[in-house]
């Protein structure tokens, strides 16, 4: 029996899943990657533009999915492109989700090894993490959605408090002048910032589970705005505190901002462990969602039970996570994923949408419901 999209999630849950999938490894490195590209303190403008691009891409995907109500991308792609090409694209998308999943846990292992659990072998960190995720995914999309609903408010709450403490280091002069070198530096940074929003493509899959898919556009907008806000705050606070020149040399600038602050008189003097906790929760949610999306793809393509693929993919993802030889390799892997995402989910949906319109898929799905 093939896995069918039986479970239903609300539009709020959809937005939450999207936000959680987008927030991931990037938040610790974003200020550096942006500052490297822009070279000016205007990175936050790039973040805003990148966010809007992500919203636009997400809306295109919603439009693409519209005629095929209750179906995931894997199920309807064949109807747009034909069976063979559709399977190929689905396979690439599955591979892409696997890549993200393995990238996320690899970054987790790197950071945990450097800042948290020095000496604990990374396979021990990764495996425990993957098993817990497996446990959640076997519960289906509803279990995922409900857990994500718990994670997101905690993330926002802790994040706001932790960055708020950074205000002692904040200096507006580090963010000025605005657009001092014109618009070009900002545009240079847009690609980088757009990439940090990868994860919005999850809408291609979860839209099939939506109780009321007509609200998908709203869910995309809300779901993207949350990470957008968090990213803006991150870039503004980190560059504002450490200055552009101080940020580009740091490997994990966001963590360094929090490590640079000590608050005396409170119960806790240091807050990086809090930031790391929410960060790990976000990695967990991104990993879970992409891992689920990949397994679901295989299951729907082969029309076999999902559980088998869940167990089968786990070692594959683990091995993929071990491909990069060093930290530089990990970051290159991240860049590769970002570029892949630009083509797969920036350009391709537009193309598919055009084909779909030509073939007159309008409303067909709705009538079938």
């Amino acid at each position, binding site marked *: 029996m093939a896995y069918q999209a039986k479970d239903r999630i609300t539009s709020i849950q959809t937005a939450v899943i999207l936000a959680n999938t987008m927030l991931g490894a990037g938040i610790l490195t974003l200020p550096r990657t942006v500052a490297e590209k822009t070279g000016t303190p205007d990175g936050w403008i790039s973040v805003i533009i990148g966010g809007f691009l992500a919203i636009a891409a997400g809306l295109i995907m919603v439009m693409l999915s519209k005629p095929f109500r209750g179906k995931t991308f894997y199920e309807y792609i064949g109807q747009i492109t034909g069976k063979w090409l559709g399977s190929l694209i689905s396979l690439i998308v599955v591979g892409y989700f696997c890549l993200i999943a393995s990238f996320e846990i690899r970054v987790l292992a790197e950071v945990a090894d*450097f*800042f948290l*659990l*020095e*000496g*604990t*072998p990374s396979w*021990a960190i990764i495996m425990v993490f993957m098993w817990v995720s497996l446990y959640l995914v076997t519960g289906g999309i509803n279990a995922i959605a409900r857990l994500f609903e718990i994670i997101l408010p905690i993330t926002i709450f802790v994040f706001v408090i932790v960055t708020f403490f950074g205000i002692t*280091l904040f200096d507006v*002069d*580090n963010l*000025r*002048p605005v657009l*001092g*070198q014109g618009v070009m530096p900002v545009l240079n940074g847009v690609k980088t910032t757009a990439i940090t929003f990868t994860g919005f493509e999850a809408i291609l899959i979860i839209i099939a589970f939506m109780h009321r898919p007509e609200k998908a556009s709203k869910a995309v907008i809300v779901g993207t705005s949350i990470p957008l806000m968090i990213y803006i705050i991150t870039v503004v606070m980190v560059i504002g*505190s*450490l*200055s*552009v*020149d*101080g*940020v*580009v*040399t*740091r490997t994990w600038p966001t963590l*360094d*901002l929090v*490590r*640079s*602050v*000590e608050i005396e008189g409170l119960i806790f003097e*240091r807050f990086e462990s809090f930031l790391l906790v929410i960060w790990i929760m976000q990695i967990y949610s991104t990993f879970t969602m992409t891992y689920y999306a990949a397994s679901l793809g295989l299951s729907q393509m082969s029309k076999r039970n999902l559980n088998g693929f869940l167990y089968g993919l786990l070692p594959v993802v683990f091995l993929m996570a071990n491909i990069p030889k060093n930290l530089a390799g990990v970051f290159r892997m991240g860049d590769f994923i970002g570029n892949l995402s630009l083509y797969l989910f920036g350009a391709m949906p537009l193309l598919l949408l055009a084909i779909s319109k030509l073939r007159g898929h309008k409303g067909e799905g709705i009538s079938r419901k």
Partner: protein
Amino acid sequence: MLISAAILFLQTGCWSKDEIEDLSIYIGMALDIGEQSKVEKELEKQGAGYARKKTMTFTIQIINELKGGKGEKTPAAEQKAYINVSETGDSIFEMIREFSTRMERPVIGHHLKVIVVNEKLARRKRMDQLLDFFLRDNDIRPSAVVFISKSKASHTLETQSSTVVPAFRLLGITDNQYRSLKIMSPVTLAKLEGKMHAGMSYVLQNVVSAKGEVAFSGAAVIKGSSQKLIGFLNEKELVGLMLLSGQGKGGQIKAYHEERGEVISYEIKKLESKINAIVKNGKVTFEVEIETTGRVMEEWTPSELEINEAFTKQTEAAVKEEIEKLVLSTLAKLQDKYKTDVAGFGQRLRIQHPKVWEPMKKDWDEEFSQIPVTIHIKSKITEYGATSRR
């Protein structure tokens, strides 16, 4: 059931734990030019040497855990609250790991608060090289504060008292910034990183020490291009710099009454300084507006002088003149002698005229020394404290 119970025994809790009792926490670090301590020389005689250049001696201050344990009345009165140990070598990391061969508890840097660099070392070695390890290490936090010492740096981490921890004392003094203009805002590694990478010049607080006592005395000027120490600002010049850059949080200015020459002590309650970069026909000039408001807290003028508007005007003028003197002497030193900008003029030009700044930023220190600066000062007296009339 049995299996799950058996598995429980495999749950080890922490994989790579280090009990805190088994670690030495170092809180302060002093870097001096290479000069081996007696113990070290003795050890080396016994053959405990390794390949290294003896360019640096560094001293770490470790919290003495034996002291201040559970209130037992041991003769701990003689014991100090800290232990200082030194190593000589040319790599800080190597020296730190060297302690593992000398002490039963390995040292960890999670709680490093202050780093003191000796003047002579800072003149010879680049700051970014000296501090590289601290910024790279995963234990040491970028919140550690950096000082320069004209005396031997390790002496600033010593005291005669058994209760004072010298590293905390240094940190504590920086908290008094609101009371004196001679104290700079603490320069942490986090703040330094950006300046070092941008090749900007900066100042670091200078600490001097004698017989286990310390005093903050002026500041050391580090030139951006060479990252080396090139000179000092004395205490007065540092006050001038604090006024100029508006960094000061409050403090006291001593002026003399114009006619009588008696002391008038003025406490700054609010200090505002604004640097304006003006570009005209491609030429850059700076205008600085300094505004202070405060109160007179001590004055020795004879009692026949009444405290009235005229007196206030006179006093304000005296204070203003004093501030002007301070600021101008600092500016002269920065522009003429050191040819470095540590007051943030470059920052203002970068913000206000980014296009003009871009070509100038490479040789900014040189350019800055040629740029005319005009200064406008306003000093207001709001009150005369609890004594209002004579």
